[in-house]
């Protein structure tokens, strides 16, 4: 049994047989052909070109409706490349001139083309060599199929299979889905890459970003894919299989149970109304948010719009995306661009130099204030979308009040511009801030006076307070949301909001984890914003808790000097069955 860890995308758990497919560039050995057989090679090439174009055209019609429109546009461009006269002519010339097979000629031509692209100065145009290489690989593979040398990629029914590949193109993903693959697993890709988005629209489980680990998965092996945990288990033993099947059923059962409380008010046993909001990143998550019964979006991350592309999205494109979310969910807190550190525009490809400590470098509001055009474009789109519902604008990573003043001046200027240009907008959008830098948490009183609302970003707050990089495996064990310093800062921020009558929400992972729900309620938190997938779980805890009775535990936990004991106390707090009033006695 081997356990591989990647990023889970899509939905559910799947168990099936590994179907290992090499969708990366195909290589054949250099093959010299007798002169009298060259014409046959050319005929095969023509047939392969025709079939590849047909396949791509068919795939084009099978792209799911809610998939991003670029996917269809790319497939159309790929069809034109396959049908390009010069591609055929050049390849045929090479076949006759060098007396080589069609595959060899294709590879020679591909390498020539790639050289031309690589010499281009423009980064974006240069990256188009990947399209050329993908297209030629598809023709190449078609040739191998025609010659009976590639029997793995037939039109086989894949309903019992899990597709395992180094990389899947959008076209591959669509066609494998039409062959009914159960799940897929890839080396490349991340939560926001095209294939991940497709997995979501197709509602199949997938694990992407295995970084070279897929080579450990043999063709035909039994494989389990868990999109919840991002785990891939190769040849799971009997016990693990049982466990997975049980978990699969458990997910289903819990889900059904939780759906029952979806429409109920989230109110504690002692009548405190708690607002439960969803964190949303991709447009496709709007549905999940709606299904969860969230009363709005507490954190709409806009980074997705800016990543994996060469240019920032235009005002219109942003406006359309924001409007879509606002119209669907009405109450939406849009966070301005939080790029830098681990998330960089264009996957970091455009970054010339790498900052030695990106988490402490130019990111989020710092990045926005240094890119005024981009920032203004985003703010314009937000103010315009705010006509359609209750929109709040949230600024990430504030560390001093001057930054906030600059942001407010920019917002005022943008509103003024829009007014002069006679463009419909809302100039009274509340401006709030993320409290995620310890400096801001410590001076939360000052921030609360100048902000319309506060939102605690625990992921970064913990990382900065404890000085540990969460993605660094060596120090990961030090990550502790229950550390007294963290709890003190969270509590201090909530208190500051109360003092100045400003709403405080919490939108980090702590809000999504129902283990912390009671503790946070006790600390005075009334607005939780979380991954919509866990919202109903949190709601269930809210509805079976009483603020009055959990509040006593808070100081006990914050003042406890032993980390294991703190965990124990938290467990005790979570175990209390508050419907049983006798349980209030604290051990």
């Amino acid at each position: 049994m081997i356990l591989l860890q990647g990023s889970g995308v899509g939905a559910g758990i799947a168990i099936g047989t590994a179907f290992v497919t090499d969708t990366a560039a195909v290589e054949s050995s250099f093959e010299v052909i007798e002169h009298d057989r060259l014409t046959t090679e050319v005929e095969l090439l023509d047939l392969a070109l025709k079939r590849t174009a047909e396949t791509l055209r068919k795939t084009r019609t099978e792209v799911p409706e809610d998939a991003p429109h670029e996917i269809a546009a790319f497939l159309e461009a790929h069809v034109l490349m396959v049908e390009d006269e010069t591609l055929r002519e050049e390849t045929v010339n090479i076949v006759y001139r060098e007396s080589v097979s069609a595959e060899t000629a294709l590879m020679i031509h591909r390498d020539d083309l790639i050289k031309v692209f690589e010499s281009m100065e423009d980064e974006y145009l240069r990256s188009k060599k990947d399209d050329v290489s993908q297209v030629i690989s598809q023709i190449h593979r078609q040739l191998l199929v025609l010659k009976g040398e590639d029997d793995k990629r037939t039109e086989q029914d894949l309903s019992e299979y899990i597709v395992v590949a180094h990389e899947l193109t959008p076209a591959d993903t669509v066609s494998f889905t039409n062959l009914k693959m159960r799940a897929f697993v890839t080396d490349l890709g991340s939560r926001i890459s095209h294939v991940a988005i497709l997995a979501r629209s197709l509602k199949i489980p997938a694990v992407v970003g295995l970084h070279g680990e897929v080579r450990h998965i043999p063709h035909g092996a039994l494989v389990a894919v868990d999109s919840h945990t991002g785990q891939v288990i190769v040849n799971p033993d009997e016990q693990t299989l049982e466990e997975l099947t049980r978990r699969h059923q458990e997910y289903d059962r819990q889900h059904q149970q939780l759906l029952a409380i979806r429409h109920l008010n989230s109110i504690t046993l002692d009548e405190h109304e708690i607002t439960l909001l969803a964190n949303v990143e991709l447009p496709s998550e709007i549905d999940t948010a709606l299904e969860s019964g969230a009363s709005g979006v507490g954190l709409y991350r806009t980074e997705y719009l800016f990543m994996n592309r060469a240019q920032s999205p235009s005002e219109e494109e942003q406006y359309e995306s924001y409007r879509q979310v606002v119209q669907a969910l009405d109450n939406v807190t849009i966070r301005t661009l939080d790029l830098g550190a681990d998330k960089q525009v264009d996957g970091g490809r455009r970054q010339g130099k790498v900052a030695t400590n990106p988490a402490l470098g130019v990111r989020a509001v710092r990045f926005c204030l240094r890119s005024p055009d981009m920032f203004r474009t985003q703010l314009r789109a937000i103010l315009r979308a705010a006509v359609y519902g209750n929109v709040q604008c949230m600024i990430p990573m504030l560390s001093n009040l001057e930054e906030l003043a600059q942001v407010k001046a920019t917002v005022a200027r943008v509103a003024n511009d829009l007014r002069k240009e006679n463009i419909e907008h809302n100039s009274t959008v509340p401006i709030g801030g993320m409290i995620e830098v310890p400096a801001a948490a410590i001076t939360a009183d000052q921030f609360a006076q100048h902000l319309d609302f506060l939102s605690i970003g625990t992921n970064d707050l913990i990382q900065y307070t404890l000085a540990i990089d969460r993605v660094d495996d060596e120090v990961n064990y030090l990550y502790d949301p229950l550390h007294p310093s963290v709890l003190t800062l969270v509590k201090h921020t909530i208190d500051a909001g109360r003092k100045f009558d400003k709403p405080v929400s919490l939108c980090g992972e702590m809000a999504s984890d129902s283990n912390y729900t009671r503790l946070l309620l006790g600390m005075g938190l009334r607005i939780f914003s979380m991954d919509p997938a866990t919202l109903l779980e949190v709601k269930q805890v809210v509805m079976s808790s009483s603020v009055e009775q959990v509040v006593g535990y808070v100081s006990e936990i914050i003042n406890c000097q032993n980390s294991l004991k703190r965990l124990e106390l938290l467990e005790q707090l979570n175990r209390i069955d508050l419907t049983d009033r006798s349980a209030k006695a604290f051990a």
Partner: protein
Amino acid sequence: MKSGNIQVSNKLGLHARSAAQLVRVASGFESEIKLINGAKSANAKGIMGLMMLAATQGTELELRIDGPDETIAYETIRQLFESRFGEDE
């Protein structure tokens, strides 16, 4: 024959999707349509050649059209470039 200079004004330049659009438009005409960037020349009815012109924003291309519908073809293609291939910037 009709010829003239034409500028690439969309931000991304003549990339896969914009080139695809040009090919679709050009293929609707009978005339022979060529785009020239310095020493490189491409048939506007073939996507590979267009992509390999490496035409970025601001590049001046020479458009050369020869055939029965050259006037309307020239005007249509000029407008396509001017509209930035329907891209926002």
